[in-house]
């Protein structure tokens, strides 16, 4: 017999263990690939980047090719679209370009290309590239070569790695005379980039340029920033061309890399590209789908509750909290040993309290029960049969609720209007049971049962009303499996209940004397 008992508990413990493992993995998975958070209302910044391309058509067929942000690592693209009436839009995913073409047009052309991106968690600005690119040696005359070598020597006095030293030297203020001999005093980003790459080429370090934009709130009409990428130790590393800072700056989106242009316009002249950035906020949960898609972890997602329509999700969100409430009921009954009216009545009351608000709900509950009991006392004098009697109590409850709502409205007493949220049948049964207990076991027992029922309901309420807990139970619904096995394990709990410690205390205390 003992053996069998051990096995049941053992099997359940194993199940619990595996469910915890599964939940743990699943939580990790959801956080990593779907971007879920433990905190509710966690938001992710979604950036709208708008590229405004304008040019004058020359009368030839138009073909515009623009670089788009690289999808892979730094940023994830939520959505993209182009406002270009009369243009055919093609996407060249392989080269990260969008191509717009049209027949000849007249007048200034304005094309908008919008892209929604979020999240740069993985963007560390380092890209592996096993194949070492060729270094294009710059063509310098002898005098310039000497200056360049002088510069390289000078750069050794600067701090940082090879690339940083050169960048810092060239950006020094006031500029070193040797630098002035190499390039003009007033230099553009582009000129610095070119100078740095040619100097690095002398040191046999391959480089390429990168264009991107820094995401800042409400940034309007700006041109993309230039950055330098140098190939070091098998990977491309980004450098800020002014400060020499290594790595991808925060909130930076790379649009284009290497020699290819940011924008090519055929059949147009005076082309200008300006960017605008807008920040919006979206809940992390709603971005889970796109994230899962991007992480190529969509199989689970499609079969999860988060792929359901929002209305169904909301229903489920409500249901997902039930197991936790049930666990509380089990604990209260089998471990604490509280006697309540009906097993799940406290849970249902606490659910109503959530809808009504805590205090208004309690007040309403109190009024309904008190009035109901008073009416029920009258009823018990009439000696009705059971079913008609309980039906009468149900109607009482409905009438009390109606009265409360009318009174609440007339007297501008908001509290009363929440009365309708209580489950009518449950309320009727509480009244019926309380009144029978009252008659049979006395008012003390009846009141105690009601108080304990409400007490358990309040405890349940405080657990399930927490936004945090509700969010966690919904976002990480595999926890319900863990709860299932905890509840089943509690089914094998043979220890004393808390109330029994008091109930049976006389047995021990007498022994002590």
């Amino acid at each position, binding site marked *: *017999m003992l053996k069998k008992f051990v096995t049941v508990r053992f099997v359940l413990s194993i199940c619990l263990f595996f469910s915890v493992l599964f939940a743990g993995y699943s939580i990790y998975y959801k956080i990593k690939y779907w971007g879920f958070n433990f905190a509710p209302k966690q938001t992710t910044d979604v950036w709208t980047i708008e590229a405004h391309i304008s040019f004058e058509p020359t009368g030839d067929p138009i073909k515009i090719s623009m670089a788009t942000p690289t999808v892979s690592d730094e940023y994830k693209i939520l959505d993209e679209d182009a406002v270009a009436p009369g243009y055919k839009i093609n996407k060249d995913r392989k080269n990260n370009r969008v191509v717009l073409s049209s027949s000849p047009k007249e007048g200034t052309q304005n094309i908008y290309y919008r892209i929604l991106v979020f999240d740069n968690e993985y963007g560390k600005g380092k890209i592996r590239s096993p194949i070492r690119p060729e270094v294009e040696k710059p063509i310098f005359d002898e005098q310039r070569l000497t200056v360049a070598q002088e510069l390289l020597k000078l750069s050794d006095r600067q701090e940082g790695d090879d690339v940083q030293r050169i960048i810092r030297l060239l950006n020094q203020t006031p500029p070193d005379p040797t630098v002035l001999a190499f390039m003009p005093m007033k230099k553009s980003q582009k000129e610095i980039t070119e100078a740095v790459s040619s100097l690095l080429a002398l040191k046999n370090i391959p480089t390429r340029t990168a264009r991107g934009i820094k995401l800042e709130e409400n940034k309007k009409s700006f041109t993309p920033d230039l950055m330098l990428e140098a190939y070091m130790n098998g990977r491309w590393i980004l450098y800020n061309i002014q400060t020499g800072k290594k790595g991808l700056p925060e909130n930076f989106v790379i649009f284009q890399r290497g020699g290819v242009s940011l924008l090519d316009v055929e059949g147009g002249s005076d082309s200008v590209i300006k960017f605008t950035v807008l920040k919006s906020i979206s809940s992390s949960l709603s971005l889970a789908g796109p994230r899962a898609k991007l992480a190529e972890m969509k199989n689970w997602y499609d079969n999860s509750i988060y792929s359901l329509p929002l209305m169904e999700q909301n229903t489920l969100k409500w249901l997902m909290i039930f197991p936790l409430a049930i666990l509380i009921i089990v604990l209260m009954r*089998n471990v604490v040993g509280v006697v309540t009216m009906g097993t799940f009545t406290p849970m249902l009351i606490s659910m109503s309290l959530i809808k009504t608000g805590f205090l208004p709900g309690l007040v309403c509950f109190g009024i309904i029960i008190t009035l109901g009991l008073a009416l029920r006392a009258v009823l018990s004098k009439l*000696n009705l049969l059971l079913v008609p009697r309980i039906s009468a109590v149900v109607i009482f409850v409905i009438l009390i609720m109606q009265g409360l709502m009318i009174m609440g409205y007339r007297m501008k007493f908001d509290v009363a209007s929440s009365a309708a949220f209580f489950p009518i049948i449950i309320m009727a049964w509480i009244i019926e049971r309380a009144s029978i207990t009252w008659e049979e076991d006395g008012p003390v027992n009846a009141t105690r049962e009601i108080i304990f029922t409400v007490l358990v309901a309040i405890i349940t309420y405080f657990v399930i009303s927490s936004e945090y807990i509700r969010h966690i139970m919904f976002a990480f619904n595999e926890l319900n499996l863990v709860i299932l096995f905890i509840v089943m394990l509690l089914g094998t709990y043979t*220890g*004393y*209940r808390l109330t029994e410690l008091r109930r049976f205390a*006389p047995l*021990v205390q007498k022994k002590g004397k």
Partner: protein
Amino acid sequence: MFGWLKSFASPSSLRAAGVLGMNRRNFNVISKYNNRRLYPLVDDKVQTKKLANKIGINTPGLIGVIEVQNQVQNLLDLVRGYDEFVVKPAHGSGGKGVLVIKSFNEEKFITASGKTLTFNEVYQHISNILSGLYSLGGKYDIALIEELVHFSGMFSEYSYQGVPDVRVIVYKGYPAMAMMRLSTKASGGRANLHQGAVGVGLDITNGKSLEAVMYNKPIKFHPDTQADLSTLNIPFWREHLIIAAKGYEMTGLGYLGADIVLDESRGPMMLELNARPGLAIQIANGKGLALPLKKIDKYYPSGLSPEERVDYVLTHGGSR
């Protein structure tokens, strides 16, 4: 500040005292030795009565059974010729729905507590029973009309109104623990300890009082009659135990509570059996139930007849 903590006992001290907790009772005893299939045998008092009479156990005489609403009006025909009767729900528990009529005529019914009821009120009570007000789970029920038990006069000073009965816990056919339940004013004439009845722990080997409690507190005298509870001594103790022990053969339940009442003229009679007897008996006895259960598990022989088992308990029960 933490004075209230003193009213709690530590789990380890309870374990040491062999106290059986509710969870342990349900999981280790009831779910193991009481097959759910057997419950209807004890939950339905009509069945219990039939089974008991079949193997020669005395029960209160059955006057009649009312099964459907329109039979209720035949009540007077049923009880014609009797001076008194008891109405009980067949599936009731804890004395709920029991109505004791001491005397009656066509119009008026006098209850045990002296209240006067009209025929309509009695009619109402029975129809409540039928509609399931007192039955477990609120299912439709039937009402039993039984002869009134005239409990032995020697107990009259120990009880206020109600019938004092002996509750014996029978484990694997062996009487394990016993107590007498005496109704009080506070319990409203009922014999349930939680309603305020007095529980007197009885020595399983001789039926003599061990100690008495009311509302979980030890007492020496009956609160209403002032009778000295320590002198309580149950006659026909062996017969009591044999009736209880036979409950095992009768139902097959490994753990049961037998309620036995001593009738003045007919001797000990089985009132009812309970497949889920409560744990308050431990408080009345001042000792835990786990110890005797363990002893029965370990040392008591199996395969004995009810009489042999009772004799075994009477000779070995007290010693450790």
